[in-house]
């Protein structure tokens, strides 16, 4: 009995730990390419600059293309009977809107993927 108790106590520290992981989807959007976008560019010119989009949404005679990159960071802490987990997903996004002549009419970008953080859930993050 004493051996079992001692073994159990010795095992306890081994059941605790922490982890940090990072998942990414697609390549980060390159700002130096985004700044080269200009109104009235053709779809072919955009493809040459950015490559193929992740999604195409047909908008009647017009269309919109989406490019994105996501980064998720997870931070975990495992204690004896309590676990803590924080996940933080941030994203780079670029939407391009083409008119009925397949010319770039408007676009908007948000580059925030790099702001994803490893942090435990009780600490401030993106406040």
């Amino acid at each position, binding site marked *: 009995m004493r051996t079992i*108790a001692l073994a159990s106590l010795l095992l306890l520290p081994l059941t605790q730990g922490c982890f940090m992981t990072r998942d990414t989807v697609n390549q980060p959007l390159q700002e130096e390419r985004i700044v080269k976008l200009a109104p009235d560019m053709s779809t072919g010119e955009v493809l040459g600059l950015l490559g193929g989009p992740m999604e195409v*949404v047909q908008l009647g005679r017009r269309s919109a293309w989406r490019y994105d990159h996501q980064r998720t960071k997870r931070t975990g802490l495992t204690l004896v009977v309590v676990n803590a987990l924080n996940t933080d*997903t941030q994203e780079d996004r670029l939407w391009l809107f083409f008119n009925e002549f397949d010319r770039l009419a408007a*676009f908007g970008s948000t580059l925030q993927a790099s702001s994803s953080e490893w942090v435990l859930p009780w600490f401030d993050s993106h406040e």
Partner: protein
Amino acid sequence: MILSVGLALGAASCVKARYERHIVLEPVQTDELQHLVPGASDLEHCLSVLGAPNFVWERSGDAIAIAYGSYRHQGWQVGASVNVTRGVSASFDYGELEALSRGYVLLFDERWKLESVSEGLLRDLSAEFERTPPQSVE
């Protein structure tokens, strides 16, 4: 001894209390929305103020809607479940973002002039729009 054995077994099992927080994307700042004027602001202006939306939808005619959303959930959970707070899975996808997040939907007319801005759950705000399935691009 019983306590220590119990703790060891508990620690090795999946029955635990979990404190979790899930942050998905940054919310749009409400003061940025004040720069948008229905009837005057066009799509290009809205994109320059708010950045890229999370969703773009087709409406009737050539009108469109765009949406910005984010969510942040945190809380305790006790039990043997592998998944998490309020049904948020450990991985991110756009369906989940639309279902869970609050945000803003901006409606544009056929000339892509801003008609209105609505705030609420994206799931509710987007229910009326026609959905065009994404087209894969080679």
